[in-house]
């Protein structure tokens, strides 16, 4: 068992080392993160000033900007694992990655986490620094942050499961980008990337709350606005249920796909 865990930790470590080969890439992403937070902070500052209200949907300026820091950190730090798998299926590299004594999904998960290990904290620190300057300190106590970190890890894990499923669709479809595009835009809108669900119309909010996309962005980010133990446990439970459901679906896709696999170039 120890050896099995060690192999995935080794994959994670090597991937992190590999991502250090291009530090400029990481800094470029952080630059974009800073730009996004700056623009949204300006937008919401103006909105609050013009409306003359200090609260919108239960969010003041600081809560809103810190919420956006979390959602943007999660979405912008997730490596595009679907592209990697899609390419492996198409160019035949799957002949190497599939033919090893490990669980293919866990190998990809370790690679995914290794790629996110550097960019995620850096993105957060850049976003948090800017949020502090433009909107003030976060409204939750420092003790809440480890719990929020747990939800962030579960959120990126949930994103992994969805992207793994999308990538595996390459067993059936020539191009999986269309599926990713739909998924990504749904997270942007119904997932609450740009706008908390609290500001949605009631019906739309109810629909969104029953979809997995909120567990990726809105769920963890909401904890930066109003943290409570109950809300934290509820968020974690929702994320775990979706992980189980979508993970099961991904396993079925994998099993079906591997049986019908035709590695290109063979």
């Amino acid at each position, binding site marked *: 068992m120890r*050896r*099995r865990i060690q192999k995935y930790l*080794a994959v994670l470590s090597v991937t992190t080392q590999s991502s250090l080969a291009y530090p400029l890439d990481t800094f470029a992403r952080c630059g974009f993160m800073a730009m996004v937070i700056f623009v949204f902070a300006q937008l919401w500052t103006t909105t609050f000033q013009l409306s003359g209200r200090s609260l919108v949907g239960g969010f003041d300026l600081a809560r809103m900007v810190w919420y956006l820091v979390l959602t943007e950190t999660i979405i912008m730090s997730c490596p595009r694992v679907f592209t990697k798998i899609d390419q492996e299926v198409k160019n035949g590299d799957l*002949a*190497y990655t599939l*033919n090893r004594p*490990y669980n293919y999904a866990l190998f990809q998960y370790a690679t995914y986490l290794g790629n996110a290990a550097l960019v995620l904290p850096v993105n957060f620190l850049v976003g948090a620094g800017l949020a502090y300057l433009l909107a003030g300190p976060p409204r939750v106590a420092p003790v809440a942050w480890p719990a929020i970190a747990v939800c962030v890890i579960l959120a990126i894990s949930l994103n992994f499961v969805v992207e793994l499923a999308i990538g595996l669709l390459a067993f059936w479809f020539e191009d999986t980008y269309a599926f990713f595009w739909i998924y990504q835009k749904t997270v942007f809108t119904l997932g609450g990337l740009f706008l908390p669900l609290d500001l949605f119309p009631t019906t739309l909010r109810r629909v969104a709350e029953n979809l997995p996309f909120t567990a990726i962005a809105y769920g963890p980010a909401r904890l930066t606005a109003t943290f409570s133990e109950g809300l934290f446990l509820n968020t974690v439970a929702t994320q775990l249920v979706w992980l189980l459901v979508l993970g099961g679906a991904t396993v079925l896709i994998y099993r079906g796909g591997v049986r019908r*696999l035709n*590695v290109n170039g*063979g």
Partner: protein
Amino acid sequence: MAVVDVENLRKVYPVKRKQPGFLGSLRSLWQPTYNQITAVDAISFRIERGEVVGFVGPNGAGKSTTIKMLTGILFPTSGSARVLGLAPWLERQRLAFRIASVFGQRSQLWYHLPPSDSFALLARIYELDDRPFRERLGQLVERFGIAPYLDVPVRRLSLGERMRCEIAAALLHRPEVVFLDEPTIGLDVVAKQEIRGMVKALNADEEVTFLLTSHDAGDIEQVCRRVIVINHGAIVFDDSVTDLKRSFLRHKVIDLKLGREGEPPRLPGVTVRVAEAFRLRLEVDVDVQPIEKVIAELVSTLAVADLTIEEPPLEEIIAAIYAATGRSVAAGR
């Protein structure tokens, strides 16, 4: 005991057909049509432990598909195969501990990291203990002469240097069977010789079984004792390299140096290619005229100072087999 045992292995896959033009695209949306492509057509063969077998055939003959079925990546349409007693596509992970594969056009090394990092990672993946791993790595580094490249990022290595590291990486876990798919593709003459030497040495020292696909007849001629020729998904030849030449050799060339000028003999099946004052070059159709008879005639009628018999290169023989259809060649054997 056979380490690879293949029985009527077959792989058929559908390829979507699209009619030309915009209307054709629309039609294929609501009424798609597929062609059934038989990549591997009921092949059977056995490989014993310690054999080095060449697996050759033109592009699309079914070589790589066969290897991918034997390594467990592809499920066959029908038939059976056992590698080291295991069914590859059903017991892929168990088998992965005991086999290795190297694909010349792909890399298993991490592109931005030095090979030493990939080796350490593979040691973890194959669950090797630290000490045996260090010992094995030391052996392979010495044998393959890769010490200077261990700490250089893979992206900075030449193709030959990378390929030596690729093969070393594949051998870390002491596999019993190694599948080499075009390991010398794109390499220069020196690098090819090095790779061939490594394969021969490993086979001799560790009794590693190799199944080697290559378009380079030199790989087959210098490394393999046995060759399987596959064409249109079917095996058209399976015997020793010597027998391949014997079976498909249609002509031989005799090069003569003469002590004094002389006329070439007029024999059926013998064509004069070069006729100079003190040199003759004759092509003999061995189906028409036995080579021994021609030599006897030459020695008795001419002042022969030196005589060499040349065979056409293996490449030429294999090309002749490809040129014929798979079925007719098989029937002609």
